[in-house]
Protein backbone atom coordinates (compact mmCIF):
# COMPACT_ATOMS: atom_id res chain seq x y z
CA UNK A 1 0.00 0.00 0.00
CA UNK A 2 1.51 3.28 -1.04
CA UNK A 3 1.54 6.31 1.24
CA UNK A 4 1.19 9.88 0.09
CA UNK A 5 4.33 11.89 0.90
CA UNK A 6 2.81 13.81 3.83
CA UNK A 7 1.90 10.59 5.59
CA UNK A 8 5.43 9.22 5.52
CA UNK A 9 6.55 10.60 8.93
CA UNK A 10 3.47 9.05 10.48
CA UNK A 11 3.96 5.75 8.75
CA UNK A 12 5.85 4.52 11.78
CA UNK A 13 2.76 5.04 13.91
CA UNK A 14 0.98 2.50 11.75
CA UNK A 15 -2.47 3.92 12.40
CA UNK A 16 -5.22 1.59 11.33
CA UNK A 17 -3.02 -1.32 10.42
CA UNK A 18 -3.82 -4.71 11.82
CA UNK A 19 -2.25 -8.08 12.18
CA UNK A 20 -4.82 -10.23 10.48
CA UNK A 21 -5.50 -13.78 11.51
CA UNK A 22 -7.63 -15.85 9.21
CA UNK A 23 -10.12 -18.24 10.82
CA UNK A 24 -12.06 -19.95 8.06
CA UNK A 25 -13.52 -17.11 6.06
CA UNK A 26 -13.37 -14.76 9.09
CA UNK A 27 -10.67 -12.25 9.73
CA UNK A 28 -9.74 -11.11 13.19
CA UNK A 29 -7.28 -8.54 14.52
CA UNK A 30 -4.52 -10.62 16.03
CA UNK A 31 -2.78 -7.79 17.90
CA UNK A 32 -5.96 -7.07 19.89
CA UNK A 33 -6.20 -10.65 21.05
CA UNK A 34 -2.49 -10.98 21.81
CA UNK A 35 -2.49 -7.96 24.12
CA UNK A 36 -5.85 -8.80 25.67
CA UNK A 37 -4.73 -12.37 26.42
CA UNK A 38 -1.50 -11.18 28.01
CA UNK A 39 -3.27 -8.52 30.09
CA UNK A 40 -6.17 -10.76 31.10
CA UNK A 41 -3.70 -13.51 31.96
CA UNK A 42 -1.89 -11.05 34.23
CA UNK A 43 -5.22 -9.93 35.76
CA UNK A 44 -6.40 -13.49 36.37
CA UNK A 45 -3.00 -14.50 37.77
CA UNK A 46 -3.10 -11.51 40.11
CA UNK A 47 -6.60 -12.40 41.27
CA UNK A 48 -5.73 -16.08 41.72
CA UNK A 49 -2.64 -15.22 43.78
CA UNK A 50 -4.59 -12.69 45.82
CA UNK A 51 -7.53 -14.98 46.60
CA UNK A 52 -5.45 -18.08 47.27
CA UNK A 53 -5.36 -17.67 51.02
CA UNK A 54 -8.05 -15.30 52.20
CA UNK A 55 -8.43 -14.52 55.85
CA UNK A 56 -10.66 -12.42 58.00
CA UNK A 57 -7.73 -10.10 58.67
CA UNK A 58 -6.70 -9.27 55.12
CA UNK A 59 -3.03 -9.25 54.21
CA UNK A 60 -1.14 -8.05 51.13
CA UNK A 61 -2.91 -8.48 47.81
CA UNK A 62 -6.15 -9.44 49.54
CA UNK A 63 -6.41 -5.84 50.75
CA UNK A 64 -6.18 -4.50 47.22
CA UNK A 65 -8.67 -7.05 45.89
CA UNK A 66 -11.11 -6.26 48.67
CA UNK A 67 -10.71 -2.56 48.00
CA UNK A 68 -11.50 -3.19 44.32
CA UNK A 69 -14.47 -5.37 45.23
CA UNK A 70 -15.81 -2.74 47.59
CA UNK A 71 -15.30 -0.01 45.00
CA UNK A 72 -17.16 -2.00 42.35
CA UNK A 73 -19.93 -2.87 44.80
CA UNK A 74 -20.41 0.78 45.71
CA UNK A 75 -20.48 1.70 42.03
CA UNK A 76 -23.05 -1.00 41.21
CA UNK A 77 -25.13 -0.31 44.29
CA UNK A 78 -25.40 3.44 43.79
CA UNK A 79 -26.27 3.12 40.09
CA UNK A 80 -28.41 -0.03 40.00
CA UNK A 81 -30.02 0.10 43.41
CA UNK A 82 -30.09 -2.15 46.43
CA UNK A 83 -32.50 -4.70 44.99
CA UNK A 84 -30.72 -6.20 41.99
CA UNK A 85 -27.20 -4.84 42.10
CA UNK A 86 -25.88 -8.24 43.21
CA UNK A 87 -26.83 -9.88 39.91
CA UNK A 88 -25.03 -7.25 37.88
CA UNK A 89 -22.00 -6.57 40.01
CA UNK A 90 -19.79 -9.20 38.29
CA UNK A 91 -20.63 -7.80 34.87
CA UNK A 92 -20.05 -4.18 35.86
CA UNK A 93 -16.86 -5.17 37.68
CA UNK A 94 -15.60 -7.16 34.73
CA UNK A 95 -16.24 -4.23 32.40
CA UNK A 96 -14.36 -1.94 34.75
CA UNK A 97 -11.44 -4.29 35.29
CA UNK A 98 -11.19 -5.28 31.64
CA UNK A 99 -11.20 -1.68 30.39
CA UNK A 100 -8.92 -0.49 33.16
CA UNK A 101 -6.39 -3.27 32.64
CA UNK A 102 -6.55 -2.81 28.86
CA UNK A 103 -6.09 0.96 29.04
CA UNK A 104 -3.27 0.92 31.55
CA UNK A 105 -1.66 -2.15 30.00
CA UNK A 106 -1.73 -0.34 26.67
CA UNK A 107 0.21 2.60 28.07
CA UNK A 108 2.42 0.98 30.70
CA UNK A 109 3.72 -2.10 28.90
CA UNK A 110 6.44 -1.30 26.33
CA UNK A 111 4.70 -3.13 23.50
CA UNK A 112 6.83 -1.36 20.88
CA UNK A 113 9.70 -3.66 21.78
CA UNK A 114 7.79 -6.52 20.15
CA UNK A 115 7.74 -6.23 16.40
CA UNK A 116 4.83 -7.61 14.46
CA UNK A 117 4.78 -8.29 10.72
CA UNK A 118 1.90 -5.84 10.44
CA UNK A 119 0.25 -3.42 12.87
CA UNK A 120 1.48 -3.01 16.41
CA UNK A 121 0.51 -4.09 19.88
CA UNK A 122 -1.41 -1.62 22.01
CA UNK A 123 -4.40 -1.20 24.25
CA UNK A 124 -7.16 -3.62 23.17
CA UNK A 125 -9.63 -0.79 23.86
CA UNK A 126 -8.01 1.32 21.14
CA UNK A 127 -9.64 -1.00 18.62
CA UNK A 128 -13.20 -0.14 17.61
CA UNK A 129 -14.21 -3.83 17.60
CA UNK A 130 -13.48 -4.19 21.30
CA UNK A 131 -15.38 -1.09 22.32
CA UNK A 132 -18.38 -1.94 20.14
CA UNK A 133 -18.38 -5.45 21.59
CA UNK A 134 -18.42 -4.01 25.13
CA UNK A 135 -21.11 -1.46 24.27
CA UNK A 136 -23.34 -4.09 22.64
CA UNK A 137 -22.94 -6.31 25.69
CA UNK A 138 -24.10 -3.37 27.80
CA UNK A 139 -27.14 -2.88 25.52
CA UNK A 140 -28.03 -6.57 25.71
CA UNK A 141 -27.62 -6.53 29.48
CA UNK A 142 -29.88 -3.61 30.11
CA UNK A 143 -32.57 -5.08 27.89
CA UNK A 144 -32.18 -8.40 29.65
CA UNK A 145 -32.17 -6.70 33.06
CA UNK A 146 -35.34 -4.77 32.27
CA UNK A 147 -37.20 -7.70 30.72
CA UNK A 148 -36.19 -10.23 33.37
CA UNK A 149 -37.08 -7.88 36.21
CA UNK A 150 -40.28 -6.35 34.94
CA UNK A 151 -41.33 -8.56 32.04
CA UNK A 152 -43.19 -6.71 29.33
CA UNK A 153 -43.83 -3.85 31.72
CA UNK A 154 -40.25 -2.88 30.87
CA UNK A 155 -41.60 -1.14 27.79
CA UNK A 156 -43.55 1.25 30.00
CA UNK A 157 -40.17 2.90 30.35
CA UNK A 158 -40.40 4.09 26.74
CA UNK A 159 -43.55 6.09 27.39
CA UNK A 160 -42.74 6.81 30.96
CA UNK A 161 -43.38 10.45 31.67
CA UNK A 162 -45.40 10.93 28.48
CA UNK A 163 -45.81 9.00 25.20
CA UNK A 164 -44.05 11.93 23.50
CA UNK A 165 -40.82 10.46 24.82
CA UNK A 166 -41.22 7.29 22.73
CA UNK A 167 -39.13 8.33 19.70
CA UNK A 168 -36.40 9.77 21.92
CA UNK A 169 -36.25 6.68 24.07
CA UNK A 170 -36.02 4.47 20.99
CA UNK A 171 -33.29 6.72 19.63
CA UNK A 172 -31.50 6.41 22.95
CA UNK A 173 -31.21 2.65 22.51
CA UNK A 174 -29.04 3.39 19.49
CA UNK A 175 -27.12 6.35 20.85
CA UNK A 176 -26.21 4.59 24.10
CA UNK A 177 -23.97 1.90 22.56
CA UNK A 178 -22.72 4.36 19.96
CA UNK A 179 -21.61 6.92 22.53
CA UNK A 180 -20.23 4.28 24.87
CA UNK A 181 -18.10 2.64 22.20
CA UNK A 182 -16.90 5.82 20.52
CA UNK A 183 -16.09 7.61 23.75
CA UNK A 184 -13.85 4.81 24.92
CA UNK A 185 -12.34 4.15 21.52
CA UNK A 186 -11.70 7.84 20.81
CA UNK A 187 -10.14 8.58 24.17
CA UNK A 188 -7.78 5.64 24.20
CA UNK A 189 -6.81 5.92 20.56
CA UNK A 190 -6.28 9.67 20.90
CA UNK A 191 -4.13 9.12 23.94
CA UNK A 192 -2.00 6.55 22.13
CA UNK A 193 -1.71 8.78 19.09
CA UNK A 194 -0.77 11.88 21.07
CA UNK A 195 1.92 9.99 22.94
CA UNK A 196 3.16 8.36 19.75
CA UNK A 197 3.30 11.66 17.86
CA UNK A 198 5.05 13.40 20.76
CA UNK A 199 7.55 10.58 21.12
CA UNK A 200 8.12 10.76 17.41
CA UNK A 201 8.63 14.55 17.40
CA UNK A 202 10.32 15.13 20.79
CA UNK A 203 11.62 11.83 22.12
CA UNK A 204 12.79 13.33 25.45
CA UNK A 205 10.95 14.41 28.64
CA UNK A 206 8.02 16.13 26.89
CA UNK A 207 5.89 12.99 26.38
CA UNK A 208 6.08 12.07 30.07
CA UNK A 209 3.42 14.49 31.40
CA UNK A 210 1.20 13.50 28.47
CA UNK A 211 1.72 9.86 29.41
CA UNK A 212 0.61 10.62 32.96
CA UNK A 213 -2.39 12.47 31.60
CA UNK A 214 -3.04 9.39 29.48
CA UNK A 215 -3.01 7.15 32.56
CA UNK A 216 -5.46 9.50 34.24
CA UNK A 217 -7.76 9.54 31.20
CA UNK A 218 -7.55 5.77 30.93
CA UNK A 219 -8.64 5.24 34.51
CA UNK A 220 -11.43 7.81 34.14
CA UNK A 221 -12.67 6.15 30.94
CA UNK A 222 -12.86 2.77 32.65
CA UNK A 223 -14.83 4.34 35.47
CA UNK A 224 -17.13 6.22 33.08
CA UNK A 225 -17.86 3.13 31.02
CA UNK A 226 -18.63 1.00 34.07
CA UNK A 227 -20.71 3.74 35.69
CA UNK A 228 -22.76 4.36 32.55
CA UNK A 229 -23.30 0.64 32.03
CA UNK A 230 -24.51 0.36 35.61
CA UNK A 231 -26.66 3.46 35.18
CA UNK A 232 -28.35 2.05 32.05
CA UNK A 233 -29.06 -1.22 33.84
CA UNK A 234 -30.35 0.69 36.85
CA UNK A 235 -32.60 2.76 34.57
CA UNK A 236 -33.99 -0.42 33.05
CA UNK A 237 -34.82 -2.12 36.35
CA UNK A 238 -36.09 1.01 38.08
CA UNK A 239 -39.74 0.84 39.11
CA UNK A 240 -41.87 3.77 37.92
CA UNK A 241 -44.73 4.81 40.09
Amino acid at each position, binding site marked *: MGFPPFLIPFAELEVGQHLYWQIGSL*KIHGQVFITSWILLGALIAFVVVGTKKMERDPKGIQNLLEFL*WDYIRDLARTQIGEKVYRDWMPFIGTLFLFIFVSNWGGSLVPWRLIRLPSGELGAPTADI*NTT*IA*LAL*LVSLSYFYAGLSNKGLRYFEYYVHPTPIMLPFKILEDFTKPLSLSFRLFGNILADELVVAVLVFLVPLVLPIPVMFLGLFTSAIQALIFATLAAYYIGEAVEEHH
Partner: protein
Amino acid sequence: MTSLFLLGASEGGLFDIDATLPLMAVQVVLLTYVLNKIFFQPVGRVVEEREDFVFTSRAEAKKKIAEVEKLEVDLKNQLLEARQSAQAVIAEAEKDSENLYKEAIALANAESNASREKARLEIDSQKESALRQLKADSELIGDLIVERLMAAK
Protein backbone atom coordinates in the same frame (compact mmCIF):
# COMPACT_ATOMS: atom_id res chain seq x y z
CA MET B 1 -6.63 8.17 -0.16
CA THR B 2 -5.93 9.15 3.43
CA SER B 3 -9.55 9.12 4.45
CA LEU B 4 -10.14 5.88 2.64
CA PHE B 5 -7.14 4.43 4.40
CA LEU B 6 -8.24 5.62 7.81
CA LEU B 7 -11.85 4.64 7.44
CA GLY B 8 -10.96 1.18 6.29
CA ALA B 9 -12.66 1.16 2.95
CA SER B 10 -10.17 -1.45 1.83
CA GLU B 11 -8.05 -3.72 3.99
CA GLY B 12 -7.23 -2.19 7.39
CA GLY B 13 -8.22 1.19 8.80
CA LEU B 14 -9.34 2.50 12.13
CA PHE B 15 -12.96 1.48 11.68
CA ASP B 16 -12.30 -1.98 10.34
CA ILE B 17 -15.06 -4.02 11.91
CA ASP B 18 -14.79 -7.75 11.49
CA ALA B 19 -15.01 -11.03 13.44
CA THR B 20 -12.90 -9.46 16.22
CA LEU B 21 -16.12 -7.91 17.53
CA PRO B 22 -18.14 -11.05 18.32
CA LEU B 23 -15.05 -12.92 19.47
CA MET B 24 -14.19 -10.10 21.86
CA ALA B 25 -17.77 -10.10 23.13
CA VAL B 26 -17.55 -13.84 23.79
CA GLN B 27 -14.20 -13.31 25.48
CA VAL B 28 -15.64 -10.63 27.76
CA VAL B 29 -18.61 -12.85 28.66
CA LEU B 30 -16.20 -15.69 29.49
CA LEU B 31 -14.10 -13.26 31.50
CA THR B 32 -17.20 -12.19 33.42
CA TYR B 33 -17.91 -15.83 34.22
CA VAL B 34 -14.30 -16.53 35.25
CA LEU B 35 -13.94 -13.37 37.34
CA ASN B 36 -17.26 -14.09 39.00
CA LYS B 37 -15.99 -17.52 40.02
CA ILE B 38 -12.47 -16.54 41.08
CA PHE B 39 -12.91 -12.94 42.23
CA PHE B 40 -16.38 -11.60 42.91
CA GLN B 41 -17.83 -14.63 44.70
CA PRO B 42 -14.90 -15.55 46.97
CA VAL B 43 -13.94 -11.97 47.84
CA GLY B 44 -17.60 -11.07 48.33
CA ARG B 45 -18.01 -14.04 50.66
CA VAL B 46 -15.00 -13.01 52.75
CA VAL B 47 -15.99 -9.33 52.87
CA GLU B 48 -19.60 -10.07 53.72
CA GLU B 49 -18.63 -12.61 56.37
CA ARG B 50 -16.42 -9.96 57.93
CA GLU B 51 -19.19 -7.37 57.71
CA ASP B 52 -21.55 -9.81 59.41
CA PHE B 53 -18.93 -10.56 62.02
CA VAL B 54 -18.34 -6.87 62.71
CA PHE B 55 -22.08 -6.22 62.77
CA THR B 56 -22.87 -9.04 65.19
CA SER B 57 -19.86 -8.21 67.34
CA ARG B 58 -21.00 -4.61 67.56
CA ALA B 59 -24.53 -5.68 68.41
CA GLU B 60 -23.22 -8.07 71.05
CA ALA B 61 -20.95 -5.42 72.49
CA LYS B 62 -23.85 -2.98 72.63
CA LYS B 63 -25.99 -5.59 74.36
CA LYS B 64 -23.20 -6.24 76.83
CA ILE B 65 -22.75 -2.54 77.52
CA ALA B 66 -26.47 -2.24 78.17
CA GLU B 67 -26.28 -5.23 80.50
CA VAL B 68 -23.32 -3.74 82.32
CA GLU B 69 -25.12 -0.45 82.71
CA LYS B 70 -28.17 -2.24 84.07
CA LEU B 71 -26.01 -4.19 86.48
CA GLU B 72 -24.28 -0.99 87.55
CA VAL B 73 -27.61 0.64 88.30
CA ASP B 74 -28.72 -2.50 90.16
CA LEU B 75 -25.56 -2.57 92.19
CA LYS B 76 -25.84 1.11 93.00
CA ASN B 77 -29.39 0.54 94.18
CA GLN B 78 -28.29 -2.42 96.22
CA LEU B 79 -25.46 -0.42 97.72
CA LEU B 80 -27.85 2.38 98.61
CA GLU B 81 -30.28 -0.07 100.16
CA ALA B 82 -27.50 -1.76 102.10
CA ARG B 83 -26.28 1.57 103.37
CA GLN B 84 -29.77 2.58 104.39
CA SER B 85 -30.41 -0.72 106.15
CA ALA B 86 -27.04 -0.51 107.88
CA GLN B 87 -27.90 2.94 109.13
CA ALA B 88 -31.26 1.68 110.31
CA VAL B 89 -29.56 -1.19 112.13
CA ILE B 90 -27.09 1.21 113.73
CA ALA B 91 -29.90 3.55 114.82
CA GLU B 92 -31.87 0.64 116.21
CA ALA B 93 -28.85 -0.67 118.06
CA GLU B 94 -28.20 2.76 119.50
CA LYS B 95 -31.79 3.01 120.60
CA ASP B 96 -31.65 -0.50 122.07
CA SER B 97 -28.48 0.21 123.98
CA GLU B 98 -29.93 3.45 125.26
CA ASN B 99 -33.05 1.62 126.36
CA LEU B 100 -30.95 -1.02 128.03
CA TYR B 101 -28.93 1.67 129.73
CA LYS B 102 -32.04 3.45 130.92
CA GLU B 103 -33.54 0.20 132.12
CA ALA B 104 -30.36 -0.72 133.94
CA ILE B 105 -30.22 2.71 135.56
CA ALA B 106 -33.86 2.50 136.50
CA LEU B 107 -33.39 -0.97 137.87
CA ALA B 108 -30.33 0.09 139.87
CA ASN B 109 -32.15 3.15 141.19
CA ALA B 110 -35.14 1.06 142.20
CA GLU B 111 -32.90 -1.46 143.82
CA SER B 112 -30.95 1.14 145.72
CA ASN B 113 -34.18 2.84 146.74
CA ALA B 114 -35.61 -0.44 147.91
CA SER B 115 -32.54 -1.36 149.88
CA ARG B 116 -32.38 2.12 151.40
CA GLU B 117 -36.01 1.88 152.34
CA LYS B 118 -35.45 -1.52 153.81
CA ALA B 119 -32.47 -0.28 155.76
CA ARG B 120 -34.43 2.69 157.00
CA LEU B 121 -37.28 0.44 158.10
CA GLU B 122 -34.88 -1.80 159.87
CA ILE B 123 -33.19 1.10 161.50
CA ASP B 124 -36.56 2.45 162.51
CA SER B 125 -37.69 -0.85 163.92
CA GLN B 126 -34.43 -1.35 165.73
CA LYS B 127 -34.56 2.17 167.03
CA GLU B 128 -38.08 1.58 168.18
CA SER B 129 -37.24 -1.71 169.78
CA ALA B 130 -34.20 -0.11 171.35
CA LEU B 131 -36.34 2.74 172.60
CA ARG B 132 -38.87 0.29 173.86
CA GLN B 133 -36.13 -1.67 175.52
CA LEU B 134 -34.70 1.49 176.91
CA LYS B 135 -38.09 2.53 178.14
CA ALA B 136 -38.66 -0.83 179.71
CA ASP B 137 -35.19 -0.81 181.18
CA SER B 138 -35.64 2.73 182.48
CA GLU B 139 -38.95 1.80 183.91
CA LEU B 140 -37.36 -1.22 185.44
CA ILE B 141 -34.53 0.89 186.75
CA GLY B 142 -37.04 3.48 187.98
CA ASP B 143 -38.99 0.80 189.70
CA LEU B 144 -35.83 -0.57 191.19
CA ILE B 145 -34.82 2.85 192.35
CA VAL B 146 -38.23 3.38 193.82
CA GLU B 147 -38.10 -0.02 195.47
CA ARG B 148 -34.67 0.62 196.94
CA LEU B 149 -35.75 4.03 198.12
CA MET B 150 -38.78 2.54 199.65
CA ALA B 151 -36.75 -0.17 201.17
CA ALA B 152 -34.20 2.21 202.54
CA LYS B 153 -36.78 4.25 204.14
